[in-house]
């Protein structure tokens, strides 16, 4: 401490380098390392080729005039208006009814028939788009009454050949699709993010501001 009187002047200029080093270091930490650490990644129990199933040349039996209707063929609305979500095995078996004879020749199908159909075991799918428990989201109000395309919220999921890994926020348990893939929070497509503000934005845009009342979407 004895040479403090002049050390302050000396270190001023060199010291700024330390400041900048700290600054840049934290930028790397915050923008690169943090997002990697925050999200877990988990593969789906098996692959499902949406593109294949939606292709009338390859798979028939999935009926519907519009894209939405085709989606709804498997991702059904029940009679009471509730949404069944990811189909149960039962639904798959409407076509893949025989564990012995595959309809196609993909390895996934074989996997599916041997591991699940034959064993009568439900596939433990991981849902990319599940909202947290506090949210009540009626698909019927949007898809049927609001005529919203599946794509609006789910993007081109139906065109995927491979199911991407399920990534969840380690802290909140949210699927990455809810908060948004981009750590910056920037949003370019309607399906990039599914937080409350995004729901509200759409309601407002479509002139349904009354649907921004709390109890419309919360339970």
């Amino acid at each position, binding site marked *: 401490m004895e040479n403090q009187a002049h050390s302050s002047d000396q270190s001023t200029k060199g010291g700024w380098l330390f400041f900048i080093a700290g600054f840049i270091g934290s930028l790397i930490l915050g923008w690169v390392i943090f997002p990697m650490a925050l999200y877990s990644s988990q593969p789906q129990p098996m692959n499902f080729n949406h593109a294949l199933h939606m292709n009338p040349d390859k798979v028939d039996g999935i009926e519907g005039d519009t894209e939405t209707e085709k989606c709804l063929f498997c991702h059904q609305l029940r009679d009471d208006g509730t949404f069944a979500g990811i189909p149960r095995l039962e639904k798959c078996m409407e076509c893949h009814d025989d564990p012995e004879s595959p309809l196609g020749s993909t390895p996934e199908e074989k996997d599916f028939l041997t591991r699940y159909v034959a064993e009568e075991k439900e596939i433990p799918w991981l849902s990319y788009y599940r909202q947290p428990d506090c949210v009540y989201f009626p698909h019927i109000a949007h898809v049927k009454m609001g005529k919203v395309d599946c794509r609006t919220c789910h993007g081109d999921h139906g065109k995927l050949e491979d199911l991407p890994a399920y990534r969840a926020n380690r802290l909140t348990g949210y699927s990455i699709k809810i908060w948004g893939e981009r750590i910056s929070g920037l949003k370019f497509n309607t399906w990039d993010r599914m937080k409350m*503000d995004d729901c*509200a934005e759409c309601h*407002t845009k479509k002139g349904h501001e009354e649907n921004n009342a709390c109890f419309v979407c919360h339970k």
Partner: protein
Amino acid sequence: MTPFSFEWQWNIDYLLFMGLLYLALTIVGCGVGFALLKTVLQLFGFMRERHF
């Protein structure tokens, strides 16, 4: 809450209330910023240091 939030309402209550909050924050921020800037300028010799 910012005017970009969907909960924001364009009425006098919000304008006045949030406006005053942002005003206070701005004044405080500017004050501190001013002192910081002045310090940095003085440190690098762009401004003269006043002695007490």
